[in-house]
């Protein structure tokens, strides 16, 4: 994204609580949180070429970790985010040892299996997760000394602050040598090996980073919803994140967030006025988008810029 467009987007996001109503703001917070999840999917699917349906598992683990930490030691936001990120990274590194040996559809199926296992575990490990009742969490305290955030606008600003930091970090990783190696693996794995790269280690690194990112998004999810339940790490969440990435344009990080906005606003805002036919509408939008914008929102913007140049 061009600096000017990026700057305008940031200003708009910061100003949003003074412009939009509570409901839209809470949706916008959802967009940012799920946008981070979509970015973690995009890092694997769009950048490294590994299609995943499992990121909701690390997202959910981060959310449970944040909720349980909040009940145990208080809901300090920074601690929640870091803890959830560490847990997401640790679990992803372990599961990744198996998963990154697979490619293509096999990879997709393994990640799907992981998210289904995590879903079952969340439902059945009642003493910890509360089973299908889920776990409630107190309002978030961003850092020690601040009051609890109860207003939607304030929670949104906390989420936005973390989002901007993480977005910047991910954008740096994608532009760094590491990101180029991942794109290389996506395009031609054999060539990267011949060029001197231990491809498996790089993919495991990417999987771990994506797990950390999804985990941190999970912690923010608890800050916005003050509640976590097994459905938060179910198939639907992973699938929506993957759809958002495709809508936004594979490989583009701002595209992933824009795609998430399209998904959330279509399903919850517009769909809400169609008496619960949000998912139907989302399906229609998806079909249309795949026909009209085969390279997603990011691809459409790129094409526009080309035409003007």
């Amino acid at each position: 994204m061009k600096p000017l467009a990026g700057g305008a987007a940031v200003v708009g996001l910061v100003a949003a609580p003074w412009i939009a109503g509570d409901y839209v703001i809470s949706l916008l917070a959802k967009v940012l949180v799920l946008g981070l999840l979509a970015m973690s999917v995009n890092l694997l699917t769009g950048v490294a070429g590994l299609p995943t349906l499992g990121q909701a598992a690390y997202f959910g683990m981060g959310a449970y970790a944040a909720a349980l930490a909040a009940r145990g030691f208080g809901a300090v936001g920074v601690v929640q985010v870091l803890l959830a990120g560490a847990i997401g990274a640790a679990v992803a590194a372990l599961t990744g040892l198996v998963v990154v040996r697979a490619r293509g559809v096999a990879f997709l199926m393994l990640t799907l299996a992981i998210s289904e296992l995590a879903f079952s575990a969340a439902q059945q490990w009642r003493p910890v997760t509360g089973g299908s009742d889920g776990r409630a969490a107190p309002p978030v305290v961003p850092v020690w000394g601040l009051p609890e955030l109860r207003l939607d606008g304030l929670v949104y600003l906390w989420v936005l602050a973390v989002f901007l930091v993480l977005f910047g970090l991910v954008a740096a990783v994608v532009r760094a040598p590491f990101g180029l190696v991942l794109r290389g693996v996506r395009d031609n794995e054999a060539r990267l090996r011949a060029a001197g790269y231990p491809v498996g280690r790089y993919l495991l690194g990417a999987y771990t980073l994506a797990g950390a990112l999804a985990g941190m998004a999970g912690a923010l999810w608890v800050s916005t919803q003050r509640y976590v339940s097994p459905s938060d790490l179910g198939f639907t969440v992973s699938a929506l994140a993957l759809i958002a990435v495709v809508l936004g344009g594979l490989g583009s990080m701002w595209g992933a967030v824009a795609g998430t906005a399209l998904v959330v606003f279509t399903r919850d805002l517009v769909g809400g006025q169609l008496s619960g036919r949000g998912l139907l509408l989302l399906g229609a939008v998806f079909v249309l988008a795949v026909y009209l914008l085969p390279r997603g929102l990011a691809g459409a913007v790129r094409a526009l810029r080309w035409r003007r140049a």
Partner: protein
Amino acid sequence: MTPLLELDGVSRRFGELRAVDEVTLTVADGARHALIGPNGAGKSTLFNLVGGALRPGTGTIRFAAHDITALPEWRRARLGIARTFQHSSLLLGCTVLDNVLVGVQRDVGARLWPLGRSRRRALAVRCREALAAVGLAGRETHAAGALSHGERRQLELAMALATAPRLLLVDEPAAGMSPAETARLTTLLADLPREVTVLLIEHDLDVVFGFADTVSVLHLGRVLATGTPDEVRAHRQVREAYLG
């Protein structure tokens, strides 16, 4: 002459097929060594065994006096073995520059933070030199997928050259190239500094005999003959098996 690459009794079977059968071969440091033989003779398999994409069933491979038989492909690349592929093997979704850059930046490949401007520029200079050497100057920002067949072959070579290899494995570089492109390629290979040892697979015998100081003939997975171009041309079995 000191040997750079030594294969000792190297074999590789695919099921019942002995693709490479007890091959013993020495490539001298600085040599221009060509590998010829009919289709299915095992030339590309031999490249895969040297590069590390395949492991030999038996035998040992030494590179610069180190036993590399058990080393993975990426470690061999970092020791200085670079290769081009018979069918262009590029990063078609990346720019021409990134295709070369990915090999050049492998010492910092695991960096999660972008490089500083001066280091980026230094790496880009190396890439541009390699691209200019193969005749792709000015195409840096083009998508690799938009290149023509001949240009892809050139980029393939630039990717290998940019890593400053000690041993360059070139697999049929002239395949599908026009005579003019082939001529430029031959000059480019001939002009490489002698610190780069070249092992070349090529069907175009004019290219081979114009370029190589040593020629090995492979037939049905075995080395039929090794010698100077003149010796090989005069070899009776070679004439029967290959030259006709």
